[in-house]
């Protein structure tokens, strides 16, 4: 009971659990999403407390920021899909065959039991048990970067990271596929104040994103966090109509999506063709290669996340702008 932060931890944990529960409990979907965003930010805070600043940054930027934007956009679509504000859909829509309450309670009871079991298992697991600490510390000098998390992401477990970028690529392909031919729900005009804000904040966001990327080699930050912040540039551009996707931009967008994955995989293969195994960067070029990959991956992540927010692939819709402005 010596830790002065104990009370803070307990309060924070309580708040996180309460927010999680209320995210699912409140009737209004908008409130639910907002609660979720707060939940995400507090979780990020908790992770800072657990000395995981990289994870906290990623969670705040991607898990909460981008996800929140996606959720809000979807909610907007749900409410405006008929062309006008439909307040009655505020609580979402009920399925055709509602699940009987008995089943719900049974499920809840089951989940409760599972949780109990998991909690017991967790409490029985070794505290701060064995890990990769020593291995990573030993291998770090050969990795080409100084920040252990970046070393893990882009060298020791680069294969996972490549596949993670592949997941992102799969997502954007799937989203384009799903929403092909879909007309967007008209977005509300955000007005001049927003445009001004956009102009002012854009350069700052770019700087912050690039900074995070660059900083990633020796301190918390890196491709994913940087990419997410840069994706915010895309979001601001899209929302402020400073940039409107056109069908002619499709090819460029495709290239941008695959840039990171392609470069990452190409470097891995190139290394492999030089008599090494894939991802085994020569130590003298490791830093250069990792920075190159990170840079390209960041661009892809930023564009992909922005595209995921935008949803459908840019198609020619007659009088799109006219409709939007009404």
């Amino acid at each position: 009971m010596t830790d002065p932060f104990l009370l803070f931890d307990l309060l924070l944990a309580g708040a996180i659990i309460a927010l999680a529960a209320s995210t699912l409990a409140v009737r209004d979907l908008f409130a639910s999403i907002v609660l979720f965003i707060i939940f995400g930010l507090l979780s990020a805070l908790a992770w800072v407390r657990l000395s995981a600043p990289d994870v906290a940054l990623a969670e705040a930027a991607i898990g909460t920021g981008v996800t929140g934007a996606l959720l809000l956009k979807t909610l907007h679509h749900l409410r405006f899909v008929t062309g006008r504000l439909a307040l009655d859909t505020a609580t979402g829509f009920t399925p055709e065959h509602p699940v009987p309450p008995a089943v719900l309670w049974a499920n809840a009871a089951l989940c409760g039991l599972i949780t109990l079991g998991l909690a017991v298992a967790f409490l029985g697991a070794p505290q701060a048990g064995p890990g990769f600490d020593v291995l990573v510390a030993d291998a770090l000098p050969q990795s080409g970067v100084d920040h252990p998390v970046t070393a893990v992401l882009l060298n020791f477990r680069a294969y996972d990271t490549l596949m993670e970028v592949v997941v992102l690529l799969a997502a954007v392909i799937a989203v384009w596929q799903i929403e092909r031919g879909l007309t967007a729900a008209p977005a509300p005009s955000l007005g001049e104040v927003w445009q001004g804000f956009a102009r002012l904040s854009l350069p700052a966001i770019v700087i912050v994103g690039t900074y995070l990327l660059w900083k990633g080699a020796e301190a918390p930050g890196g491709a994913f966090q940087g990419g997410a912040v840069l994706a915010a540039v895309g979001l601001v551009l899209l929302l402020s109509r400073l940039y409107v996707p056109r069908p002619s931009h499709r090819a460029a967008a495709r290239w941008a999506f695959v840039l990171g994955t392609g470069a990452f995989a190409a470097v891995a293969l190139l290394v492999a063709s030089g008599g090494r195994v894939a991802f085994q960067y020569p130590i003298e070029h490791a830093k250069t290669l990792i920075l190159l990959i990170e840079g390209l991956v960041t661009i892809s992540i930023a564009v992909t996340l922005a595209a995921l927010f935008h949803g459908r692939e840019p198609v020619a819709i007659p009088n799109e702008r006219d409709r939007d402005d009404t």
Partner: protein
Amino acid sequence: MILDLLAAILIASGAFFFVAGTVGLLRFPDLYCRLHALTKADGLGLALIAMGLSLLAGSAAEILRIILIWFFVALASATCSHLIAAHARRVDRERTDD
């Protein structure tokens, strides 16, 4: 020492304004009033806390960063409040139309 004390007072009063803003958010009757309470109190509260922290900061670079944070938060919150208010007004209008 005095610097520390000053900083503590500034931060404490900043926190007070935050609490006040939150009370306003919870107690005020409609959206516009809540927005008013929130933005006013938070803006001031943040400014005070930022000042308090700058007193404690070790270098000019850190102070610069604190100022930047304050600037962008203020900018974002102003824009957000504007957007929320504009949205609310539009919804109200459509509701009366129906």
